[in-house]
């Protein structure tokens, strides 16, 4: 059974990641690609969590993002919760303790997050959504290895050999 300490530490790490994302905001953008630090951190943490705990982390990040957004509270929370649950479900099936796999999961997970969110809250312009989402997916994928090494010690409850 998983202990509560890694869960609490991971929740705190996600809150800090969101705070950095909210505070630095637009200045994180490089060449038109802006990462969603909170979402990327969520996906990395979910790699080391079971489905139920991952869904809880998804809810946390959804609530945090919704608190600073202009509405769409339910869409944020539900989209983050669903995708986090799916990533958490893979934890029991696929060995993923690797930076390369983390990059792949963050790339695909970010794309899934944006797609699920767009289903709940369709964007006004499809072209600008595609461009923005593409930039966020690439930026998150680039950040994933760094986040993997930073978050692995707090999110994983596996014993180091």
């Amino acid at each position, binding site marked *: 059974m998983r202990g509560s300490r890694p869960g609490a530490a991971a929740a705190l790490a996600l809150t800090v990641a969101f705070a950095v994302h*909210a505070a630095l905001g637009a200045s994180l953008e490089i060449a038109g690609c802006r990462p969603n630090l909170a979402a990327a951190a969520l996906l990395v943490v979910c790699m080391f969590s079971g489905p139920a705990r991952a869904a809880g982390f998804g*809810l946390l990040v959804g609530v945090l993002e919704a608190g600073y957004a202009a509405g769409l509270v339910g869409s944020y929370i539900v989209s983050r919760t669903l995708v986090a649950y799916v990533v958490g479900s893979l934890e029991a099936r696929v060995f993923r303790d690797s930076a390369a796999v983390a990059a792949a999961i963050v790339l695909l997970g970010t794309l899934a997050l944006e797609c699920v969110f767009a289903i709940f809250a369709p*964007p006004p312009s499809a072209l600008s959504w595609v461009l923005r989402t593409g930039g966020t997916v690439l930026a998150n994928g680039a950040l994933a290895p760094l986040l993997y090494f930073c978050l692995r010690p707090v999110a994983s409850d596996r014993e180091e050999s």
Partner: protein
Amino acid sequence: MLRSTPTRPIGNRLVLAGLVLLGVSLGVLHNRAIARGDPSPVTTVVRTVTMPLVAAVTGVSCWISGRWSVLVGAEQAVRENRELRDENARLRAEVTRLHEMGILAQRLQRTLGFEAPAPRGRIVARVVALMPTIGFHTLVISRGSRDGVRAKSVVVAPGGVVGHVFDVAPASAVVLLLTDSSSAIGARVQRPESRATGICRGNGTDLLRMDYVARDADVRRGDIILSSGLGGEGGVFPKGLPIGIVEDARLDVSGALKHVTVRPAVRFDRLEEVTVLR
């Protein structure tokens, strides 16, 4: 590499269903509060709890960028200082001239029986988070309902209009920027020969689109666009605030209206303080 299959799929699905239900309930709670014109309990709690952390990160970031700019930009700062002194001298002369014109305008208003707009209270607020959510052009400020900020209060910076308050908590507020795709403001060309009107809308980019401009309207690149005090997002914006400068004006595809692109007067990504008009 494959690992063992999950052991408690039904329990996990129940947890997921519960969390999704909780998420939907929070969304409904938020929407109902906004529809009633009340502060949203969800966003209020989230921002009240996380604001100190976000504000601390913003403070550290500003401190570091300030020190960095001192280190690398001293020569540039000297040059800019000289240019700003010259500009300041020019602007002082302009202020004196405009002050005289203001006195004349007041006298004429009184003579003609025009109703002067009531002066508005101002609240200066620090920008705590700039565009914190991807896809929305918003910022979060350090003042809220306990400071007198209300939903739909107009927010300005020295350069011009920033946007309007969308959601208020006791110690913070979310401001919807002009560039957000759900923003709209009644606009007018400042040039006396034109005075063409339209609605400036955000489209999720750094530029604004001015709609409903008549095809024969005299709008040119470089024209200054001011708020008209008409229409827009509930007609909340007072008249005469700078919105931006025309980048491009051409007939739209149908040929019935003019397609005008406006660059906002305010650089939103450099905002550190804003003023809320009550």
